[in-house]
């Protein structure tokens, strides 16, 4: 089969069953080179299994997985793992090693220069704890160490399974900073996450997984168009002109609320631009426009509750 080099990862009609339990059910998806691809879905939707399939840790029951142009279960794929990083969900490490020893061990296995170890420890703020044993580390510290090992050697392909769970907001910011630095170097990132509001601004494309099936995949605006959730618009208008503005717009769009100096509008995603043109036609009467596009959590809830996949 021809290999599409634009795709860092490709899943073709992949099923994964454990006994009679279907964990992944006929998934087709592609992760493009250099993008940030986010898997969202309920607990037990199959996100971790999809990631393990991509990592070559588990074999699909049916279908084909291609990573960097090769089946990750091939024995020859081992060498390609040098260009891959993985942060497992709640990573566990050798408890009697120190942070420094652990990173050193992983760096040697990856063939990464030992000069990078100190830099990575500093990046995740673990330099002071570097010589402490890992069984004294808190969950947050282990998670940061997990990230440090995942980004060793600046991988081309980075897998993060619920990376920011249990991290405080400040650390989260550093966390995303490290990932964004890597991304500017061309790294493809696959993230599974429940932290929808922090991920939506970082995702290029989002895959919604429900009971092992891919119910939707696309950019945030693709998804919101598909769901048909409305865009909310609030117009600030000159005092007393609200009723007049509402009257002029009523022919083109739905008016939600009107009060003395503001008008709230609701319109579907694909009528957004037309509506904006009508607003522009109103001239000076409209002082300000603020729009709220549907958030990922609304879209997510819609997919989880509404559409029966």
């Amino acid at each position: 089969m021809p290999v599409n080099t634009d795709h860092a990862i490709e899943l073709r009609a992949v099923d994964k069953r454990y006994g009679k339990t279907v964990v992944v059910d006929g998934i087709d998806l592609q992760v493009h080179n250099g993008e940030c691809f986010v898997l969202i879905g309920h607990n037990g939707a199959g996100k971790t299994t999809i990631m393990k399939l991509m990592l070559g840790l588990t074999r699909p029951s049916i279908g084909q997985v291609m990573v960097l142009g090769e089946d990750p279960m091939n024995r020859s794929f081992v060498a390609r793992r040098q260009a891959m990083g993985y942060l497992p969900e709640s990573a566990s490490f050798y408890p009697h090693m120190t942070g420094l020893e652990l990173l050193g061990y992983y760096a040697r296995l990856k063939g990464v220069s030992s000069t990078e170890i100190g830099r990575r420890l500093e990046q995740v703020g673990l330099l002071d704890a570097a010589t402490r044993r890992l069984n004294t580390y808190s969950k947050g510290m282990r998670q940061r160490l997990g990230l440090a090992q995942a980004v060793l050697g600046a991988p081309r392909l980075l897998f993060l399974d619920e990376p920011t769970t249990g991290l405080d907001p400040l650390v989260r910011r550093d966390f995303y900073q490290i990932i964004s630095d890597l991304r500017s170097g061309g790294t493809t990132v696959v993230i599974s996450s429940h932290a929808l509001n922090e991920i939506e601004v970082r995702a290029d494309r989002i895959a919604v997984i429900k009971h092992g099936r891919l119910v939707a995949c696309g950019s945030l605006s693709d998804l919101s168009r598909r769901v048909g959730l409305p865009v909310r618009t609030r117009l600030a208008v000159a005092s007393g002109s609200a009723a007049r503005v509402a009257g002029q717009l009523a022919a083109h769009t739905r008016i939600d609320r009107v009060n003395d100096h503001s008008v709230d509008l609701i319109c579907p995603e694909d009528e957004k631009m037309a509506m904006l043109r009508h607003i522009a036609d109103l001239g000076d009467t409209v002082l300000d426009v603020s729009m709220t596009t549907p958030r990922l959590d609304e879209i997510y809830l819609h997919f989880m509750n509404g559409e029966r996949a």
Partner: protein
Amino acid sequence: MIRMLKTILILAAKEIRDGLRNRWVAATILLLGTLALALSYLGSAPIGEIRAGVLEVSVVSLTSLSMYLLPLIALMLSFDALVGEFEHGTMLLLLTYPVARWQILSGKFLGHAAILLLAILVGYGGALGVLILVGDGDTTGWQAYSAMMASSLLLGCVFLNIGYLISSLVRERAVAVGAAVGAWLLLVVLYDLGLLSALLIDEGKHISEGLFSALMLVNPADAYRLFNFTGFGEIGRLVGATDIGAGFESGLVAPILVMVLWVIVPFLLTTALFHRREL
């Protein structure tokens, strides 16, 4: 190729560091050294009419001891090599590194074997030094003693690999402990008892001497004993092994071959099982 070897060495070095850290190495050295010295002193008194050096007597007593002790030490080192990392979750991450599964197993084997080698060299070797010093520089029998040390390492390697096989077969660490103790009991203790009772019940009707020796030889612990008891001149007479019959003349090669096979076959089986394992 060099990268491949380097990876194995990195993995082995970690096992050795772990062994040093959790005092496994120190405890094993202490145990082997103390027992070697104690047995030599106990055994050096009543030698009787057979002329044998203190080293040759030590080989006899140490062989009988090592046959029980080394398999146990090796199994305790190896039983959780795989299942422990699976259960603890560290295997998941390790397998996403540029490391082949056979390399993981080879690295662990190399590391554990190095620990055993160190313990045997320092424990038994140290006792050898002390015995030579005490015996006013009498080195008679050093070849037999050295062969005992080398074959002890080989016996240890056999049971390391039996431990890995157990580790790849079971899903829980607790089960692996039980299976390791079971394997030790079966191969080291019960096998001989079973064989002897079979011989007694049979009264020589079906089990010929040849068959008996063959059955003896295929067990790695017995192969180890045969190698050390019959391999070197004086020792055979010392334990009376040669009196039992020509069937016991197993020589040096056959027991070594048996033990090498007991290293290779479980190793290959473990590699195959490990490769099939999904996470």
